[in-house]
């Protein structure tokens, strides 16, 4: 990998970050002259003088009493110290603290979803590719058409109805004590996964089918390559051809797909979290929306975008490491 390529990509990622950050700064200021009006919208029973005073207080509290440019530089310098501002919640907790508090709970869902989807998807996909054209393959084909048309939140509602309310196997709503009483003991971890079972299953059904389909296509594409034919012609065993020559080369697009899904790890489950009342980033964002908590909303947005930028960067760099043709193409 060329060093200039890496530096270029990193600089570009920083450039994108600044564009996103600037957009993030201006979005709550859209449509109003004074951001204080956004932060404290006028109430019906308020006289004009009262509202002026309230606006003045709001301006001072959130640093809106300086010029917009100064506000922007303050915002950027705050970000360099990882300061995303303070939320409107009681006692004005820091946005970064709130995110740090909720992030692990979202990761419980999304990381287990990724692991399950990927591992089962790889197996199913390889089987379908190996039995190409037979019933295993056509089953996968039909399932993938169906799964795109069935939104995950509908699956979640059905699961919560059947397994949560009818059979009472798993909790249909997350137990609120799960978070407050969590102490890293084995029992507490068991409780977490007991509560997370339905959300994880409803998220991973689509993921399993998606990764199976990707694996299948990738494996089939590699099977048609000449080096696989050569390996067969050399008289290698089926297993050796499959694992040593086919699968290893078929992994490249899968690695990219996994890398790109990293950005979805944080914001990918808003609706599912809401259905199961899961205590994660998605519900935090919806709470912020319901209370018009702009610093918190924009903080979460910026955090998600940053993760997406980093994931993109990592994918690009890994990919150029795995496939040197990309950096060579850069030289042209």
């Amino acid at each position, binding site marked *: 990998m060329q060093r200039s390529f890496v530096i270029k990509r990193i600089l570009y990622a920083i450039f994108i970050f600044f564009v996103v950050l600037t957009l993030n700064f201006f979005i709550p200021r859209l449509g109003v002259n004074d951001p204080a009006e956004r932060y404290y919208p006028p109430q019906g029973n308020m006289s004009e003088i009262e509202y002026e005073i309230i606006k003045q207080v709001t301006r001072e509290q959130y640093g809106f009493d300086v010029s917009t440019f100064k506000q922007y530089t303050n915002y950027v310098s705050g970000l360099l110290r990882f300061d995303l501002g303070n939320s409107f919640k009681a006692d004005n907790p820091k946005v970064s603290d709130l995110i740090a508090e909720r992030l692990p709970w979202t990761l419980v869902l999304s990381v287990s979803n990724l692991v399950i989807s990927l591992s089962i998807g790889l197996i199913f996909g390889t089987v379908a590719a190996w039995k190409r054209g037979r019933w295993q*393959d056509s089953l996968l084909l039909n399932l993938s058409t169906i799964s795109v048309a069935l939104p995950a*939140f509908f699956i979640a509602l059905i699961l919560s*109805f059947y397994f949560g309310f009818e059979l009472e196997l798993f909790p249909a709503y997350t137990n609120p004590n799960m978070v407050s009483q969590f102490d890293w003991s084995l029992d507490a971890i068991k409780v977490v996964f007991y509560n997370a079972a339905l959300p994880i299953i409803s998220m991973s059904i689509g993921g399993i089918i998606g990764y199976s389909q990707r694996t299948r296509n990738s494996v089939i594409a590699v099977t048609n390559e000449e080096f696989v034919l050569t390996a067969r012609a050399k008289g290698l065993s089926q297993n050796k051809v499959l694992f040593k020559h086919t699968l290893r080369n078929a992994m490249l697009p899968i690695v*990219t797909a996994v890398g790109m899904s990293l950005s979805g790890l944080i914001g990918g489950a808003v609706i599912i979290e809401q259905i199961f009342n899961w205590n994660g980033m998605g519900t935090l964002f919806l709470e912020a929306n319901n209370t018009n908590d702009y610093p918190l909303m*924009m903080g979460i947005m910026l955090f*998600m975008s940053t993760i997406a930028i980093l994931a993109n960067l990592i994918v690009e760099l890994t990919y150029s490491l795995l496939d040197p043709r990309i950096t060579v193409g850069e030289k042209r």
Partner: protein
Amino acid sequence: MSIIKRISNRLIDILLSIWEFIKKLWRHPKGRVGLIMVLFLAFLAVFAPLIAPYDPYDVTQRAAKGLSPSWNHLLGTTITTGQDIFSMLIYGTRVSLLVGLVTGIAIAFLGAILGIIAGYVGGLADNTIMRIVDVMLVIPTLPLTIVITNLFGKSYFIIVLIFVVFGWTGLARVVRSLVLVLKNSNYVKASELAGGSRWHIMTKHILPGVSHLLIMNTALTCAGIMVAEAGLSFLGLGDPTAISWGKMLADAQSGGALLFGHWWWIMAPGIGIFIAVFSFMRIGLVMEEILNPRMKASSGIYKLFKTLNNTYIQEVFAKMDEGNEDLPKGEAL
């Protein structure tokens, strides 16, 4: 020729090619099923007031709350307000189809225009468009939609606007890479040598080359957007007064359908979403099969995943498929 006449001529061309596609679709057995299903949904949407047995907006039926399915109420009534679920289901077709179709068509136009400009004109235009795409790709769409509806109020107009503003990026990239190939083809070069203007070449030679992609993409985008719209309505971001399938699901969840075992209240809108999305997908996949006979139905799905999932992967896949060196991401910063 005035510019308006030029544009209208092109529009007529586009409509004619769409009509050709519909005829081809009708001849294909699977395509015919999809087409009939979409026409049926359109029929329901247009004539909803005549078909629906009750007024779905009538929330005053206190005596008829939470009824089970019967001949009077085919799918029962809601627990909270006693609305007839079957009538709501029929009215829900309107929002889904309208949002899906309008967004799909708008994305096709925007994606085609920007993709062709980026690919054919190149230079500064290309760079600007592709940088915008890069920024768009990292902004999380769902949270942004929530923020925008918070700022400007909840309506389907805003939802469609956001879908269009964020949806064209994938199509524009695909169109651009196809245009880069077409640009080097002999007939385009011949037209350039013959002194054809940029407008002439772009509309007369490049656009027909990418139109099949656009039409197929519109069907698949409609399907994807209908799922997304249901999700947003489920979160309560749509117009609060309209009836949509996503909102019906949210009402069912908050109204105690799960608790009281009224499974039909959940299944009805869910199956509505499924049928609508499925028929549009069917059309998109069949179109692809018609356009590219070498391709079997199986790879149609593979293409679909490429369309619905992240665009970067699409490009990597496309590059792997074609052995095309022009990987847009890897070139010039």
